[in-house]
């Protein structure tokens, strides 16, 4: 039987054997792997990819402030499209394959949402044009607020924070404002060891001392240790749930009650809401404030690092303190001193928040509906558990299952192999996968946090599992070279981060002509 008739998936195990050892090219390009210089190396200051209409003659009102020193290279449109197309091809992305970055919820970006956000009625309206001319925008914000409140079971929400970390600031400021209103801002915020860096950074921003709470053997907050630290100085606890080990905090209600008992607040980091959306309402767990990363749970694009959007839901106790602007009864309340803003802690950003993300997130929610969002959580959890189960013997998992939406592994299976978590992750690149989150959470040595999300198919998971098993076997069998220099097959090999930091080059400088430089 010939290979042709089965039409099975080709195996490329013998790839390099038939390729001459070292094909070099004069251009530096390698087939479709094309190198691309910087704009400043390719362009010219007088080249232009925009036809700016002619400028009418007028008497300048610039009053001597004219600029004469602007030198920036430009490109024609064909060059620009090519430049960025070539650059884009050096990236890995969800559109290319499984992107199991734990804590990041790298799910599919629905293309409908991109279309919807570009409707002129959303994309081409000014934040300060008369509110009477944008009733659809106001309604959209109210509708989004309604979905978020209903899904979280919380009575209030603010939409303006620009990302998760901004949402944390928002929630914690409301907490501090509420405490000050009571007459005592208190001094300390309790944060589990496993917390994301933004949590302690946020608490510190507000002038709070950060006290760390250890984790138990099974990867949860140590309730006893926490209770021991609870006193009248504690303003709040910040807990991520499901936590950054991918586990649900079983004692969450007990924790909330204990915090409330000493007059403190419970801030929940909602970065992992994807695991429980439609299944559990944080409001039912005693949460006082929680941000929601629309760019995680609600699929707005990650965009290579933003923009995001971080609405925050609030309990009754904190509702009076929410920042301006907000929509109430169909009206946009934005001005300092406006009715109903007496206790508001103020404003977090100019204008009204990430409208372009609201449109996308609402389209996503409406697409899934209440049934579909529940299914999202279930499939995300199922996919993670499937990975945990299939890999726990080949890799090593610090905690027993079931997990929530992410599967956590540690470095124990690499012990004695000479391969580190980093090496292992880099070898995944050669296999066609983005590495998982590494060395986070800090509570586990050499952590590997795998979050597949619900938008991966069974086949995709199986392929990933097979690849990791095979890498684990390779590591254990002593094939260290495969890992140490990895990735070998990516557009670049490992980059020298030390050199980058030692003498930072943060912008392009014209090359010094050789002759001069030699002097």
């Amino acid at each position, binding site marked *: 039987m010939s290979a042709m008739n089965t039409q099975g998936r080709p195996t490329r195990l013998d790839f390099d054997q038939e390729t001459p050892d070292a094909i070099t090219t004069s251009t530096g390009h390698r087939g479709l792997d094309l190198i691309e210089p910087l704009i400043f190396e390719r362009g010219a200051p007088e080249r232009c990819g925009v036809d700016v209409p002619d400028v009418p003659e007028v008497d300048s009102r610039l009053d001597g402030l004219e*600029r004469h020193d602007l030198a920036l290279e430009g490109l024609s449109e064909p060059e620009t499209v090519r430049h960025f197309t070539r650059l884009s091809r050096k990236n*890995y992305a969800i559109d290319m394959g499984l992107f199991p970055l734990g804590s990041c919820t790298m799910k599919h970006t629905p293309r409908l949402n991109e279309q919807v956000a570009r409707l002129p009625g959303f994309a081409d309206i000014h934040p300060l044009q008369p509110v009477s001319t944008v009733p659809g925008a106001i309604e959209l914000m109210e509708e989004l607020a309604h979905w978020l409140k209903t899904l979280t079971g919380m009575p209030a929400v603010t939409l303006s924070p620009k990302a998760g970390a901004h949402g944390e600031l928002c929630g914690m400021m409301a907490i501090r404002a509420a405490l000050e209103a009571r007459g005592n801002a208190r001094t300390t915020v309790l944060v589990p060891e496993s917390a994301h860096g933004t949590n302690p950074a946020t608490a510190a921003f507000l002038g709070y001392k950060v006290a760390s709470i250890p984790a138990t053997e099974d990867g949860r907050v140590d309730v006893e240790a926490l209770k021991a630290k609870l006193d009248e100085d504690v303003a709040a606890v910040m807990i991520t749930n499901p936590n950054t080990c991918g586990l649900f905090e079983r004692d969450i209600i007990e924790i909330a009650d204990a915090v409330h008992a000493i007059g403190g607040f419970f801030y929940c980091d909602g970065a992992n809401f994807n695991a429980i959306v439609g299944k559990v309402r944080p409001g039912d767990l005693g949460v006082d404030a929680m941000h929601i990363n629309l760019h995680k749970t609600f699929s707005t694009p990650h965009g290579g690092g933003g923009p995001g959007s971080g609405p925050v839901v609030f309990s009754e106790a904190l509702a009076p303190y929410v920042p301006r602007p907000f929509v109430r009864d169909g009206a946009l309340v934005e001005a300092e001193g406006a009715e109903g803003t007496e206790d508001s802690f103020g404003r977090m950003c100019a204008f009204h928040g990430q409208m372009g993300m609201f449109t996308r997130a609402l389209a996503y929610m409406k697409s899934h509906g209440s049934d579909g969002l529940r299914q999202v959580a279930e499939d995300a959890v199922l996919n993670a558990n499937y990975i945990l189960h299939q890999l726990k013997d080949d890799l090593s998992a610090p905690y027993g299952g079931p997990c929530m939406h992410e599967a956590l592994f540690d470095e124990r299976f690499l012990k004695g192999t000479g391969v580190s978590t980093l090496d292992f992750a880099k070898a995944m690149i050669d296999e066609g996968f983005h590495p998982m989150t590494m060395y986070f959470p800090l509570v586990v040595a050499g952590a590997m946090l795998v979050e597949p999300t619900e938008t991966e198919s069974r086949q995709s998971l199986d392929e990933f599992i097979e690849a990791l098993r095979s890498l684990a076997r390779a590591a254990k069998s002593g094939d260290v070279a495969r890992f140490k220099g990895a990735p070998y097959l990516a557009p670049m090999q490992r980059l020298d981060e030390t050199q980058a930091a030692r003498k930072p080059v943060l*912008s392009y400088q014209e090359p010094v002509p050789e002759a001069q430089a030699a002097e």
Partner: protein
Amino acid sequence: MRYLPLTDHDRRDMLSVLGAQNIDDLFCDVPREALLDAPVDLPPHASEMAVSRSMRALAGQNLAAGDAPFFCGAGAYRHHIPASVDHIIQRGEFLTAYTPYQPEIAQGTLQYLFEFQTQVARLTGMDVANASLYDGSTACLEAILMAGRVTKRSKAILSGGLHPHYRDVVRSMTRFTGEEIVCADPDPAVGAPGSDTADLMDRLDGDTSCVVVQYPNIFGHIEDFTQLASAAQSQGALLIVVMTEPVALGAIKAPGAMGADIVVGEGQGLSVGLQFGGPYLGLFASKQKYLRQMPGRLCGETVDAKGERGYVLTLSTREQHIRREKATSNICTNSGLCALAFTAHMALLGGAGLAKLAKLNHARAVQLAQRLEAVPGVELLSGPFFNEFTLRLPCKAGPVVEALARQGILAGVPGERLYADRTALHDLLILAVTETTTDEDFAALEAALKGAIQ
């Protein structure tokens, strides 16, 4: 459901691999009483067609700027964004990537961030720029906090020409940080509305960490801050220049050339559409010597194991994911994709294109200003300006703007919208003009304005 690849068959099969009876076995750590046994009270899933229809219905209720003579600015500007920019930011490899933590497979993102930093540094005339912050207003806050770290002082003096939202953000967000914020009052002075350099110099003292001015300011006014910079620096304070209209940098002196220590701004005008206020693009540039106190991500050049040039995120010991409570800022996700749009648009324009575009904006604004100052009862407050200027109307501007909106004209931002509590500013109207504004728009505005103020 179209975004969920698992079929019921897959689900059953996978559960059985796990030895679970049903999905809720996996949710066993959730307190029983908190686990919902039915969907919450929201509509069920819907087809793409149905969702698209309902979103279109909402969008259709709004008056899009492109469908009206349009003169709003005040921190958000309507410029023509080339079609190729939108094409580029929709490339899946950019749109659906994460922060470039794995540089071997993220050179696309990293190289454009390096290009972006270079463009921002050159445009502002500064040494270094970061890889973006959320928007102009939060960048302004971060700049003040950075000045506090640099100078180890905590008093910031804000010009009355600063965008009132920015001022509001700074005051709100420093409520608990120990910074003292001194705000000058906006003065609608004829010939220099919002200008208060002399006053700011008077207020400078040995406790001052920074002086914050806006350029062009909220009323469109521009002036030279060279003297202010020296005055601040001689007191050991920093000069922070805030910009909300990046196109201006094609026509007016760079803040760096005036001696600014930190330049922050809103990059929206050159990157993304108005979008009702967000997402936008925070620009942040500073002198080299303050580098280690900068907030946000930085992309730097390096080499790979083969010696090839490449880029990585660097100096991350300033950031929360490494330094946690000791970080310079808690920012994590920033405005990557908007930075890409900015970089692509700037690449298309180049220096020559930006200069011409800026000249066009200025010339058109001058034309409109001349036209409107000729309207009886209307007073042009602005002296030097770029593409935005302020009028004093013979009546409250808010109702005029509302009346014109009913005629389908978006006439600019009335004083009341920005300064609800300062009735003295309620007869002001701030108008911006860009390359997108036509002569017909001018004529429509002029006619309607005449009608409305009579």
